[in-house]
């Protein structure tokens, strides 16, 4: 019986498995193959096997190294800021007051909407000459900012949008974490005369460790594939100030048609992602075991 049921279950899963093998696994293997080729899309018959040649070239390519550094910089800055702001927001929303739920849902809207829209909207707000940001900045005495038009501030401007859009993500996760804290703990703390910052430091923040880890890993993977935002704001510029790995791959693959080279770069992103995802998956299973007890 057990065997028959197992087979039924497997047949139910079969269409999905076949689908994923063809449309996800096969392309991944194909990427590995392409990364060893010197292959230009416009001359498909001139593919040459170059082994690790593309990777050797990548590690000497200043633009690729720059795009890697930019990606890391954007990821770290964004995630740190999102964690800080996210915690503050969660503290505010973690009060069962009338209307809080509606406010919270409205607050989440930015992350549900495609980054393309936000990229362009913020380019308008950040326009140095007639944008709203500089108008306000000059009124309050912060002065003229070049935003996306200067290599010095472009990356930071990207981070601002990224943080603005994704702080809600961190916040709602922290909120879910906070709601899991037993009220008894707070009662005990207030009996002991704990101050609010002691409660935050010794009860809340330790309790959020698990959810914070999940957030960091998910946001790391998000930032590794950061494409839409770059495409709709700076397209990597000025110069290479905001070139990210995903954008580099897109440009080499579909503007310069340097397919082999681009595939090699995407394999590097894939390896990074796989490493991060292993941590995440481990946490997933641990979380499951915890909830089963």
């Amino acid at each position, binding site marked *: 019986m057990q065997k028959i049921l*197992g087979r039924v279950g497997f*047949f*139910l899963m079969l*269409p*999905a498995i076949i*689908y*994923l093998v063809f*449309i*996800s696994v096969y*392309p*991944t293997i194909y*990427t590995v193959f*392409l990364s060893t080729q010197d292959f230009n899309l416009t001359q498909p018959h001139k593919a040459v096997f170059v082994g690790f040649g593309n990777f050797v070239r990548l590690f000497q390519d200043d633009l690729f190294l720059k795009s890697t550094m930019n990606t890391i910089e954007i990821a770290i800055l964004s995630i740190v800021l999102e964690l800080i702001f996210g915690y503050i927001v969660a503290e*505010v929303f973690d009060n069962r007051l009338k209307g809080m*739920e509606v*406010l*919270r*849902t*409205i*607050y*989440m*809207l*930015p992350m549900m*909407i*495609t980054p*393309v*829209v*936000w990229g362009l*909207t913020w380019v*308008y*707000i950040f326009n140095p000459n*007639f944008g*709203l940001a500089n*108008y306000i900045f000059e009124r309050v005495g912060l002065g003229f900012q070049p935003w996306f038009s200067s290599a010095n501030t472009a990356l930071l401007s990207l981070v601002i949008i990224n943080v*603005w859009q994704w702080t*809600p993500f961190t916040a709602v*996760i922290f*909120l*879910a974490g906070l709601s899991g804290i037993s009220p008894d703990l707070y009662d005990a703390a207030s009996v002991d005369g704990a101050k609010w910052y002691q409660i935050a430091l010794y009860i809340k923040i330790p309790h959020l460790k698990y*959810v914070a880890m*999940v957030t960091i890993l*998910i946001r790391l*993977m998000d930032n590794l*594939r950061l*494409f*839409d935002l770059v*495409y*709709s704001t700076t397209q990597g510029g000025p110069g290479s100030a905001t070139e990210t790995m*995903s954008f580099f791959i*897109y440009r080499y*693959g579909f503007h310069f048609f340097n*397919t082999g080279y681009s595939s090699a770069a*995407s*394999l590097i992103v*894939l390896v990074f*992602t796989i490493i991060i*995802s292993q941590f995440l*998956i481990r*946490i*997933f299973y641990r979380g499951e075991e915890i909830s089963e007890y």
Partner: protein
Amino acid sequence: MNIKSKFLIYFLAIIIVLISVFPIVWLVMTSFKTRVEIFSIPPIWFPKISFENYIAEFSGGSSRLPFLFNSLKVAFFSTLITIIIGSLAAFGMARFPVPGKRNLEFWILSIRMMPPVAVIIPLYLIMRSLKLLDTNIGLIIVYVSFNLPFVIWILAGFLRGIPKDIEEAALIDGCNWFQSLVRISLPLSAPGLATVSIFSFMFSWNELLAALVLTGRNAKTLPVAISEYWSTTQIRWEAMAATSVIHIIPIIIVTFLIQRYIVRGLTMGAIKE
């Protein structure tokens, strides 16, 4: 809680919400502006409400309407196919002692985490050889593969939350497994199904990279059309805003529908509210 701290919390919450939704409001205001009002200094906060930009962008020779329909078609059909294949798999995963289930789950979850940029070149080559470039079908095929792992994983989680006893009772009463799926499990998992459908629709509706690479003049979706307003010289802000507003209206509506499940959906079920 005393009145003073209540007031403080409301005050902070409203400031936070304002920061968050301000660009949405600004986008809507921009969509009502005329060309001249766009460049006005000081900025015009409340332009006269006029739908001229919408009419201009969604009618006539260069109408964005076909791209809106492409987006709707692709998001709808990719969701439908994903749900059909995905709910079968989720049911199998959640309810049957499939040998090696752990490894299968693990594999499906890993696929979910793969960056689309890592497979976009091969997908382009595959679609080119299948002559499916710049077609809705090509994009649907790809979106199903993007959303399938998500749907299986989340739905299996929902199904595990439904007590097994109910299904077992149905089996004892003479239902076969298919009847128990259709009559018992599916209706009970309706909230789960609705949630993953909406998520799947939303992911397809918002997706840019694959649409950019795999479609062109005929099958391009709304996000691609919006990205085309980008230019180094002169962006038509009012037109961009009008098209964007049309694009985000459905998302705003569905956000309220699935608010309870957003955390679960976006963390792949790692965190439940």
